[in-house]
């Protein structure tokens, strides 16, 4: 690993001020540190944000659950409030990585990184999340731009993620047997007016599968999507799963999720 300067910011303002074209924010470091260790990324400055008190914690109101960006996965999975308001979000957090990752990794880090097979982005899409940054509020649908790409500008820092509480929801994933990342993960959420089916792992970026969302909005039963033949042309293909297999898994996991709701 190349040498770098370490900064611990006391508030968002300081963190933002320290940011430059050769810096990165550091929360859990679950992606940043291994990338640096492997020489895939180099930064002159790492700006640690996990000591910024305001960025941690969970708040539940009648309609939403708001989670601070530096909140660890283990805190989300253990939170009684989250379990009560959105149990699927709690179990999603419980299924990320391994205990070591869950004890350090943060929700903000996961979303800012926007790994195509990360779990949290699907929750953001399915649960109509709003991403609160130090500058603005961004709707989840406009936040995830592409592979490892988000709407965040340089120096912009996620402060919290606000999830809309659905009537019912479930997240089901088919993990990569080696990394346990999602080969396909499907988050189904039934809101008052409509149903969202958010898919991670299948394409270069998380997305809302309109076809399944529509079918389930019409009839919230796994039979309404059973046998659906999804277009696999844009799906990822690698040694662990071909595009066709992924397309099939999206439907299978969506059905499982609906049945689990």
């Amino acid at each position, binding site marked *: 690993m190349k040498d770098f300067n370490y900064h611990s910011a006391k508030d968002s303002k300081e963190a933002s001020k320290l940011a430059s074209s050769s810096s990165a924010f550091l929360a859990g470091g679950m992606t940043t540190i291994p990338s640096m260790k492997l020489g895939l990324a180099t930064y002159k400055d790492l700006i640690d944000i996990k000591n910024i008190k305001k960025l941690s914690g969970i708040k539940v109101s009648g309609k939403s659950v708001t989670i601070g960006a530096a909140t660890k996965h283990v805190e989300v999975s253990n939170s009684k409030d989250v379990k009560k308001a959105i149990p699927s979000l709690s179990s999603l957090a419980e299924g990320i990585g391994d205990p070591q990752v869950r004890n350090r990794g943060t929700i903000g880090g996961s979303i800012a990184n926007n790994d195509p097979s990360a779990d949290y982005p699907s929750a953001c899409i399915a649960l109509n999340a709003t991403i609160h940054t130090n500058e603005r509020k961004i709707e989840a649908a406009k936040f995830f731009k592409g592979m490892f790409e988000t709407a965040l500008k340089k120096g912009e820092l996620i402060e919290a993620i606000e999830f809309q509480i659905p009537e019912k929801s479930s997240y089901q994933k*088919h993990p*990569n*047997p*080696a990394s346990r990342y999602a080969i396909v993960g499907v988050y189904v959420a039934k809101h008052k007016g409509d149903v969202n089916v958010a898919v991670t792992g299948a394409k270069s970026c998380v997305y809302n599968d309109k076809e399944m969302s529509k079918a389930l909005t019409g009839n919230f039963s796994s039979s309404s999507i059973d046998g659906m033949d999804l277009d696999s042309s844009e799906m990822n293909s690698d040694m662990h799963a071909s595009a066709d297999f992924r397309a099939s898994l999206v439907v299978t996991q969506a059905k499982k999720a609906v049945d689990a709701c």
Partner: protein
Amino acid sequence: MASLVGSRVERKEDKRFLTGKGRYTADINLANQTYAIFVRSPHARAYIKKLNIDKALKSSGVVSILTGKEIADDKIGGLIAGWAIRSEDGTEMKCPGNPPLAKDNVNFVGDPVAVVIAESLAEAKEAAEKVEVDYKVLKAVTSTADAMNGDTIHEGIDKNLCFDWLLGDRQKVKEAFDKADKVISIDIINNRLIPNAMEPRACVADYNAASEEITLYTTSQNPHLSRLIMSAFGNVAPEHKLRVVAPDVGGGFGSKINVYNEDIVCSWAAKKINRAIKWVAERSESFLTDIHGRDHVTHAELAVTKDGKFLGFKNETIANLGAYARVFGTVTPTYLFGPCATGVYEIPAAYTNVKAVYTNTAPVDAYRGAGRPEATYTIERLVEKASMELGIDKTELRIKNFPTAFPFKQTLVHTVDSGDYVAGMEKAKQMADYKGFEARRKESEAKGKLRGIGVTSYFEACGIAPSAAVMSLGCGVGLWESAEVRFNPTGQVTVYTGSHSHGQSHQTTFAQIAADELGVPIENIDIVHGDTDKGTFGMGTYGSRSLAVGGIAIVNACKKIVEKGKRVTAKMLEANPEDVEFKDGEFIVSKSNKKKTIGEVAFACYLPGVRDEMKSPLPEGDEPGLKETSFYDPSNFSFPAGTHIAEVEIDPETGHVKLEKYTACDDFGRIINPMVVEGQVHGGLAQGIGQALYENAEYDETGQLMTGSYMDYTMPRADNFPEFNIGYTCTHATTNPLGVKGCGEAGAIAAPPTVMNAVIDALGGQEVTMPATAEKVWKACKNLKKSNAKAA
């Protein structure tokens, strides 16, 4: 005194391992040490046009940079194949040179071309990035099946063929096949695996200019053998000026048998720069450069009568050696494979033909089971297919062809001294509730799932001795084992063993054996291994040989101690040596109440005199001291055997295979410590099931390793396994005094065909290659649905 052999004695080594006090090679730091980083080829096959170290030499902290040129100039030898194999046509195998640092050509991704030695690890890494290597990239050969049609990798080795070996009689086999009612044939791939020891390889080399001695601390399964190879072939130093220490070693599975490039380079370079050098592999280096295992492509046939008697067996295999032939690289796909390929069956005629090929991939060598998993996979997949095609129950078909008497003269090489395969099968069936399977299959079907059951009956040849036998087959060394048992004057015992423990619990099991033999409390016995400066020359640990060979050497040395003790007691007590009996640590003169404890005898041996009397307790001809050595060379291999049964449930929608039940019923002969054996069985099963369902080393067509990290190489985890159902039958080996057979590899040998037979059973007989990943199984499920629809 109760016997310790057979009891669950807690592991003596756990105190240090569980409290973080183990001392591994990477824990060793020497004064004024430097750090090495190896510059490795990023290409699978290339010619080195130019190598420029000028910039790197100027990098901060650099002490030295050495390349293939210096190592050649100093006449340091290369890495070697330990077994010479002869082709069917009588010609000797063809092995390329394998210099520790490549000079002209690189032949796999990770092949080292230079070593950078610096004051710190960070500086060494930084400088290594500045070494400029200009490669002319050549077309790589990566496919096992097509290697013989690829470009010639090593000059003078046509078709990339190391040897084309035959064991058995083609004519007899032809005659047997001519008489057959039916021929079952199969095309299978034994997938390539990466051993993944928990501790990556490492070495620390030190040079003492005053004594001109090199000391190498290294992650080895066999330090004496490493010293011999480094001295005799590597030309690093004469054996008496080279000390090899393998301290605590965190798993080997065969991958740490070899002397590796880094061992030779660091030892040689430490002398050159007159400073200690430390090198610790990063995990990605382990993936790329540790030896890999398996990698066979096989076509096999079984000739049968319509009522299920086996008549003949054919096995045509292409085995991938990787870029170079290493220590056990050539014997693994031949004498460790061919003789076992006819399995536990009486088959009158058989042959195995192996074409061993070079490819531009990491060298392939012995990995847990070495040859025997490949053999067992071949015959047991065939037998299972025969049971489907003949419509005979898979267990009945096996029993029908089991030998009826022991010793069992196996078709090709081995005479199996002992066993009871029918008893093993019956017990396994009972343990697995084989009868209840159909009901469980129906329950699974009701849930929309597919359920399958698979059986394997195996035997294996382990111990890998006697020396005369292995040397007659081409082994470069004798594979006996040594032990030295030393009493202290005050009665404690140190046992020096030539075996090496890298997870096998020798500190406990060997102490149990010595405690029983000598009647000394186990806490007064220390087991010492892993240092060429301590104890006698030893051959090391691999091939499940520690107990069946190394353990017996300890028994024999202890027996010599007891014999001397009898003589000394007789002299002290004025009795005939023939009248002295030894029991529970006491030498008793029969028909008298006169006795001496072994502690008193040891004391007398070291202090052989009495005040005011001219009197010695030592009989004439006996020297003072109490220390005995044994070099034990067994009369035969040892032959563990057993039957394993697996049950899987498949979700046809996702292709997910869930291993529901796994039953292992093994015959390991006498068991020294059941807890340790369970650990060995569990570990072997994890690796065997890993091969069947998860693990796979994959190269792309340019020779890049696609599974070079845990992100892509699926190491099985605890949650992939059910609770293992383990049981034993026991027939004692007749070829050694303890009646032991060896248990280290059984799980890895039996599990792959057991699990795959279950998967294929669930899939209605459709072939799936290992590992049975979700996608492959999903596709097979779709085919099954189609063919079922057609049938309906």
